[in-house]
């Protein structure tokens, strides 16, 4: 799992400069998009799609910290999205829509869940770790389905979006877009600092060679657990945003398939580069959004009913596409960029 992640040693030269440009372009695109969207004639649609991309980008980026920099394949990351979302939904339905209450509660709950499940999971290695994180995710999923007061299986509508100092500022989709943008930018900066810090360096070291790290005096468990907690809290925040965007919470936030999608986003973008995870999330969601449209266009030779059937079953294309990407596009999108740079 370690071989593909790029080294974090700061010795890349030409690529280092290129790497510096990619996140800049990415965030510039998000910053310009609302202005372009105003002219697109479908402003609401574009804003909501891009907001979704940023929220998933945040979740995928948080996963990248443990997956890309710590080589910990956590298959239960969607649980944290659920914790964040349910914190918002439950508090709002109890009458506290204030974001300054909701977010700290969501972060504390995520941290607690990460601390307890992480401490148990990190005792295991490899496949057992994948499985036990999956099991903890399922545990929370079933807990959510049994919360009859909050919609059980069916989920429930969140009565109102979070308020900031009591104001209903975030009710505006544009304001919410900018709120998500700022969250993503701030947490990108924070994670960028973390991976370069003393802590991040130790985490990257445990990814490459845990035994070596022990033999110079580190106990990998402590650093992995701390990273797991940080990552979980950030995903919890993404969950808060997600509940606000959809104004709906349900156990579907934390299915194991959702955890799988998050992993896929990170791998698609390229492990261990942070902005790669955001790019991966964007690519995944845009593909999901436009593959049916694309199939519709590509099927122009077919009869109408076949064409409809093709579009309805776009996942039959999506699945094999995923397999092909795994088999042939190693290193993800960032890896392709890097190869292009050398070639």
């Amino acid at each position, binding site marked *: 799992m370690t071989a593909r992640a790029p080294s974090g040693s700061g010795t890349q030269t030409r690529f280092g400069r290129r790497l510096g440009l990619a996140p800049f372009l990415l965030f510039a695109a998000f910053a310009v998009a609302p202005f372009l969207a105003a002219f697109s004639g479908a402003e609401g649609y574009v804003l909501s799609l891009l907001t979704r991309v940023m929220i998933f980008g945040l979740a995928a980026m948080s996963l990248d910290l443990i997956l890309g920099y710590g080589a910990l394949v956590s298959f239960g990351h969607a649980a944290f999205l659920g914790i964040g979302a349910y914190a918002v939904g439950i508090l709002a339905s109890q009458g506290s829509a204030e974001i300054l209450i909701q977010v700290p509660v969501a972060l504390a709950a995520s941290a607690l869940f990460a601390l307890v499940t992480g401490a148990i999971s990190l005792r295991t290695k490899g496949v057992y770790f994948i499985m036990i994180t999956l099991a903890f995710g399922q545990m929370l999923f079933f807990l959510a389905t049994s919360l009859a007061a909050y919609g059980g299986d069916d989920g429930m509508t969140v009565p109102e979006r979070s308020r900031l100092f009591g104001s209903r500022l975030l009710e505006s989709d544009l304001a919410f877009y900018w709120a998500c943008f700022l969250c993503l930018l701030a947490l990108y900066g924070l994670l960028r600092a973390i991976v370069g810090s003393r802590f991040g360096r130790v985490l990257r070291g445990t990814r490459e060679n845990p035994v070596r790290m022990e033999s110079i005096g580190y106990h990998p468990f402590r650093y992995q657990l701390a990273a797991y907690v940080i990552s979980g809290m950030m995903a919890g925040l993404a969950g808060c945003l997600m509940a606000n965007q959809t104004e709906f919470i349900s156990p579907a936030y934390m299915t194991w398939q959702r955890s799988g999608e998050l992993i896929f986003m990170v791998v698609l973008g390229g492990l261990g580069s942070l902005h790669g995870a955001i790019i991966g999330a964007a690519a995944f969601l845009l593909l999901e959004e436009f593959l049916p449209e694309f199939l519709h266009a590509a099927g122009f030779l077919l009869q109408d009913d076949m064409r409809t059937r093709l579009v309805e079953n776009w996942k039959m294309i999506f699945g094999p596409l*995923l397999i092909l990407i795994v088999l042939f596009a190693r290193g993800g999108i960032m890896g392709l960029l890097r190869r292009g740079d050398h070639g």
Partner: protein
Amino acid sequence: MTATLLFVQSLNGLQFGLILFLIAAGLTLVFGVMDFINLAHGVQYMVGAYLMAAFSAWTGNFGWALLLALPSALAVGLVLEALVFRHLYDRDHLDQVLATFGVILFLNQGVKFVWGAAPLNVPAPGWLAGSVEIADGLLYPVYRLAIIAAGLLVAAMLYLIVNHTRVGMLVRAGASNAPMVSALGVNIRRLFMIVFGFGAMLAGFAGAMVAPILSVEPGMGDNILILAFVVIVIGGIGSIRGAFVAALLVGLVDTVGRSFAPNLLRLLLDPATASQAGRALAPMLIYIFMAAILFFRPSGLFPAKR
């Protein structure tokens, strides 16, 4: 009354556990021998159920349908092995997780494409229909007893194959030390293929057997896959014996827990809270059970690797 209920629920748990074992057996071998993590094992169970539904509608006969479904499930497994899985043996677990996730997306949609999204029903064979009185005034469906019998039979057969045949010996050796087996000059690729096809067929068999008592629908393999993973992790990856013990434990804990957790909690809490907490707790029980076992034995109950 409670004792009777406990007895019935234990039988249900046993039946569920044996179905889990059929799925987990293939999964744990593929996992143990090839170090290959196959998320698509659950859809092979689903494919088995769909094949059963299709052949049963075509032939109108349960026995013939089962006879056709088994080799077809095997064929599907072998095709998938050749097309996808074979290229993933040398990859890390992350790649395997993702690619087999892609197979799930494809097949879940594929059965919708072929058979539609509506659930299908498979009639139980006439000679296994109805109920039998297993104790005073206690009726139990014959078909469920048949599943228990079939599950025990397959378990016994697996035990014989794994412990008393050459292939079984290689499989056991492979699970504890795969490089050693390939160093002995065994065609490891062919061994993989056999194990894989066999595992797919067992999962397909499980799907075919439950088709008459569950509705056959897309995604039916997704949740049972997770339970099968719980089973093999509790049992110890690569261990058939572990999978058997763990499958029965999980089946019993889940089934009995669901009906008795509210009752047990009533001893501690007031009835309303107890029934609510019980309903919340019951589906989480097996995961708590698994976490507890891994906490004390990080490699499961019967670790095969040394």
